[in-house]
């Protein structure tokens, strides 16, 4: 019987500051011991931890089409994330996973894809972006809608600005309040979605971000004619075991760590606590 | 009769425009249990009762108010909470007011002068496994207990809670309305504490080690204590983590000593921590040791009035320096 609580060693290859400020976000490029490949599905997460400190569940921000490394974008908030932020390249951390159901991305082939992210919500969506780009011809139109409070809070700025130059996808960035030197949309992400009006024909919409943003994005998508089955989101909860045993991450009778974090809105809407 | 007067006062309190709801006692759901009841204005009050079984302190609910869901949705203009309070409860209220934990004008206190309450463990040992609700009334020094269809007369001392035998203030010290006649306050005495102090250190260590090994760290003693109302308790803080979460004698010792010391000069001996402990740890023995020291070293009694300064925040030049060597 394998021991699901036993973590694997991994080394941090590179760290990159995404945002600074009160709640800085750092992206860690990590390689597992003996170069083991996790071959996770996009949208799955893993327990990232440091011995003597603890673990926390972080969504894997890199796609399985790039198996040589794993990337995690971590916001400095609690005990474990603060300890992680003090780690530099070369240090060893522990990884446990992959956990969760991940996005059913195989079923989305030759469909249009719209990802709608808010703040750090872009991290769980990034594996979709990479997966679609690595299999570009298998997918239809591809829109990336992403916003944050200020330009400084936008993650993966360099990558997204580079993608804006490509013609086989559209990147719509936005910030909440106007700032000097900002040409993109100013306002909340749900309003940006109404402005862009992605067509619901043969389209899958995935949204991640603060719960309040998810609520309004889903509301607007429904207004634009999206059916419940076409809308996916990920939920966030405190998690400790990651395998549906310790009981705390439940929304209704489903466990976010095992039956989630990806939920189709059709299942989500009749869950009591959502 | 006390219950009758209590209902009249409660009706008057609930008819006031500035009272949100009243917290009192009602008969429990089985055997010798008593249960808190929250009565909104215009709700019936006939369930209200007061009997020697009321061994529970209601002061905790005043401190949990901010998390207490308001019963009716519309914004609460009236701000007062009406509360049935016994002598020891009012000492807790005094302390909370003194420490700015709760504002005096937020409370409408119906004081009930108390003649001592029954120890749940003693009565359940005497009449085990009683399911149908039972009644207890006190009559000239005896308890008349009717349960399972029979009635028994038991001398009071046999069932009285130990703390009530050393109770200093049976009559409420602070109230808006008082029910029952005023009884004189009694001097404090700590015989069982003095006795335990004489024991050699090894024996005391063995005793507490055995007790702390039983603790399951359910934190009920902290959660029930009216004076434990910090938003993040040191037991739950992770940055820094003072006490590990694993349960063994050494962590339990650390938890109990921290909890007790945080009540130094504050504890008012309502005995809730000892009453609720599922593993029957003698927690009041620790608290009363500090109470004795506060009295002997600094002549201080906690919860006597809402104005005087808390013990550990005052310094007088004549304070004893025995501990500085």
């Amino acid at each position, binding site marked *: 019987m394998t021991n699901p609580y036993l973590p694997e060693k991994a080394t941090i290859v590179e760290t990159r500051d995404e945002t600074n400020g009160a709640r800085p976000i750092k992206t860690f490029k990590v390689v597992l011991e003996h170069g083991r490949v996790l071959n996770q599905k996009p949208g799955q997460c893993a327990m990232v931890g440091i011995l003597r400190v603890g673990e926390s569940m972080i969504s894997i921000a890199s796609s399985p089409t790039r198996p040589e490394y794993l990337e995690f974008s971590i916001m400095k908030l609690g005990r474990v994330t603060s300890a992680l932020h003090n780690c530099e390249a070369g240090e060893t951390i522990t990884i446990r996973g992959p956990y969760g159901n991940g996005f059913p991305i195989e079923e989305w082939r030759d469909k249009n894809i719209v990802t709608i992210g808010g703040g750090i919500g872009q991290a769980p969506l990034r594996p979709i972006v990479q997966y679609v780009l690595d299999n570009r011809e298998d997918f239809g139109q591809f829109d990336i809608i992403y916003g944050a409070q200020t330009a400084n809070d936008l993650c993966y700025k360099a990558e997204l600005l580079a993608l804006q130059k490509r013609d086989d996808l559209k990147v719509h960035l936005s910030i909440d309040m106007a700032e000097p030197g900002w040409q993109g949309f100013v306002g909340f992400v749900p309003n940006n979605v109404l402005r862009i009006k992605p067509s619901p024909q043969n389209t899958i919409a995935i949204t991640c971000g603060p719960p309040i943003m998810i609520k309004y994005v889903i509301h607007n998508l429904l207004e634009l004619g999206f059916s419940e089955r076409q809308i996916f989101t990920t939920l966030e909860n405190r998690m400790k075991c990651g395998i549906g045993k310790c009981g705390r991450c439940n929304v209704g009778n489903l466990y976010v760590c095992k039956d989630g974090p990806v939920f189709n809105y059709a299942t989500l809407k009749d869950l009591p606590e959502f | 009769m006390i219950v009758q007067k209590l209902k009249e006062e409660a009706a008057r309190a609930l008819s006031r425009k500035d009272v949100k709801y009243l917290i009192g006692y009602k008969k429990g759901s089985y055997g010798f249990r008593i249960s808190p009841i929250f009565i909104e204005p215009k709700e019936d009050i006939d369930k209200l009762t007061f009997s020697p079984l009321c061994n529970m302190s209601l002061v905790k609910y005043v401190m949990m108010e901010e998390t207490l869901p308001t019963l009716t949705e519309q914004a609460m203009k009236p701000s007062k909470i009406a509360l049935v309070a016994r002598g020891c409860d009012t000492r807790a209220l005094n302390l909370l007011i003194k420490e700015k934990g709760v504002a005096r004008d937020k409370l409408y206190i119906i004081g009930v002068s108390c003649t001592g309450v029954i120890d749940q463990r003693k009565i359940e040992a005497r009449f085990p496994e009683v399911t149908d609700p039972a009644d207890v009334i006190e009559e000239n020094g005896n308890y008349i207990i009717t349960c399972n269809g029979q009635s028994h007369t038991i001398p009071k001392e046999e069932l009285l809670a130990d703390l009530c035998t050393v109770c200093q203030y049976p009559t409420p010290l602070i109230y808006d309305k008082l029910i029952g006649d005023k009884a004189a306050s009694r001097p404090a005495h700590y015989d069982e504490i003095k006795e335990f102090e004489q024991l050699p*250190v090894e024996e005391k260590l063995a005793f507490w080690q055995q007790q702390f090994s039983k603790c399951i760290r359910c934190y009920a003693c902290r959660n029930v204590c009216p004076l434990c109302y910090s938003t993040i308790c040191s037991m739950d803080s992770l940055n820094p983590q003072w006490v*590990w979460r694993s349960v063994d004698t*050494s962590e339990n010792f650390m938890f*109990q000593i921290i909890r007790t010391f945080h009540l130094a*000069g504050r504890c008012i001996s309502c005995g809730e921590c000892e009453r609720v402990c599922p593993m029957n740890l003698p927690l009041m023995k*620790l608290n009363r040791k*500090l109470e004795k020291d506060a009295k002997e070293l600094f002549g201080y009694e906690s919860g006597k009035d809402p104005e005087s300064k808390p013990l550990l925040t005052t310094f007088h030049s004549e304070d004893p320096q025995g501990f500085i060597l």
Partner: protein
Amino acid sequence: MLRNLLEFSGINPLRLRMSWVSASEGKKFADIITEITQDLKSIGPQKAYLRKAV
């Protein structure tokens, strides 16, 4: 009061020592430290509440 509570719960009072030593009283500081180490050696290690080594 903490000292009395610890003694009450079985911790030998010699284990807790509080004293005021100003920065200039180097010698007094050294004396107190040697004194307390001798006391501790005399009563031996406190096994009861030791955090279990893993």
